[in-house]
């Protein structure tokens, strides 16, 4: 099955971020979204460890380890950046001040539940800011491959893995489609050109609702 690359999924998510939006990108794959801001738009990126307005990584060898993001990677400052302590940082998160949070997922359920912090009781549990980030942002979006590496649906009726948050996700950008979560249902908005609704439904773990026009998901090679 044809599918979007991770860069292409990130590109698609970036198109929905408005100029001047305050945005938190989860550690790992979601960080790619920052690379694909459309020309003429500039989002202000928030990181949990107390920084608004950071830019890309510095050149190797010129890192300043007091200037890092939540993934503990070195970053740079953009004009207009601000530092603050951890309680203020999470006040921005829970207090509804962020416009968008974009997160990864192990599973997303049709009721908006998200599982993205734990694959079960093995090993050392670690949650970080995941359970905070799913609350408070005006939009909580997920970017993910449509299925697991074993081909199992990641969009499901109910999550089987430990939850990060209940009823929190509003939009999912996958390798095959763009899907909104409305009133406890997956609503299909865009799908890859040439992909039939039946084939998409076959790799989706809950019913896809079509309530209006479904646009073609067209993404450049990036």
């Amino acid at each position: 099955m044809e599918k979007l690359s991770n860069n292409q999924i990130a590109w698609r998510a970036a198109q929905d971020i408005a100029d001047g939006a305050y945005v938190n990108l989860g550690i790992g794959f979601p960080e790619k979204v920052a690379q694909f801001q459309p020309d003429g738009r500039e989002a202000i990126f928030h990181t949990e460890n107390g920084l608004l307005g950071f830019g890309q990584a510095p050149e190797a060898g010129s890192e300043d380890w007091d200037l890092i993001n939540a993934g503990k990677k070195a970053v740079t400052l953009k004009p207009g950046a601000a530092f603050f302590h951890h309680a203020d940082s999470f006040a921005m998160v829970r207090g509804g001040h962020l416009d968008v949070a974009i997160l990864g997922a192990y599973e997303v359920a049709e009721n908006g539940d998200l599982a993205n912090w734990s694959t079960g009781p093995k090993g050392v549990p670690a949650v970080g800011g995941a359970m905070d980030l799913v609350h408070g942002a005006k939009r909580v979006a997920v970017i993910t491959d449509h299925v697991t590496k074993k081909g199992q649906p990641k969009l499901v009726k109910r999550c089987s893995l430990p939850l990060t948050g209940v009823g929190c996700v509003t939009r999912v950008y996958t390798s095959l489609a763009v899907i909104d979560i409305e009133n406890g249902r997956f609503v299909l908005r865009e799908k890859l050109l040439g992909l039939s609704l039946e084939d998409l439904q076959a790799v989706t773990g809950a019913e896809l609702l079509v309530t209006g026009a479904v646009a073609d998901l067209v993404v450049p090679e990036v």
Partner: protein
Amino acid sequence: MDKTVSDLATAVAGIEDGMTVMIGGFGGSGSPIELIHALIDRYRETGHPKDLVVINNNAGNGHVGLAALIEAGMVRKLICSFPRSADPVVFTEIYLAGGIELELVPQGTLAERIRAGGAGIPAFYTPSSYGTDLAKDKPVAEFDGRMYVQERWLKADVALVKAETADTFGNLTYRMAARNFNPLMCMAAAEAIVQASRIVDAGGIDPEVVVTPGIFVQKVVEVANPLQEEDLNRANAAYPLEA
């Protein structure tokens, strides 16, 4: 008034067995690594302090700083949000062998519990963790149609903190994102012990730029060129450091 103490060993001399110790920093950024190492030195010489309850966002990295404190066997329990790292071998091995207790707290809840401890707020409600395994057995309540979890304050006997500039009254500024948990921990501990890259006389910090007012700080010690955990780990250092 002068809150300056002469050296690191004196700064940490009052930390006793079983105390709850908040340690600032997020990874290596803002980590008071020299204060931690001074505490390890004391333990190696005297066998104390041990059975510590440590509050930090992480569980250390490599074999220096917080990881070395855990590796030395001084920590009974860790309260943190993310006990994984690039080089997590110390905590992981001791935890999986049952040698250390872990209380896992969402990062924003950890910050707010510490803030609440410093602000005299015994409990508060947050949406974070509602409906998840981390909210098990915690009281919940509905406000304006949404569900929230009750969380309790966190306080400590001592906080170990890293600042950029301190004055003799204990007013502090921080360096970039090294601020993180440090200001909150100064508030929540009965005794905040601060290492600063420089100590100036009262009046040497513009009152407009003070981040932590000195009322929250009890001791300051100067560490002019602090080590950075990331640099030590890139050099595969282990504490005690080789000369």
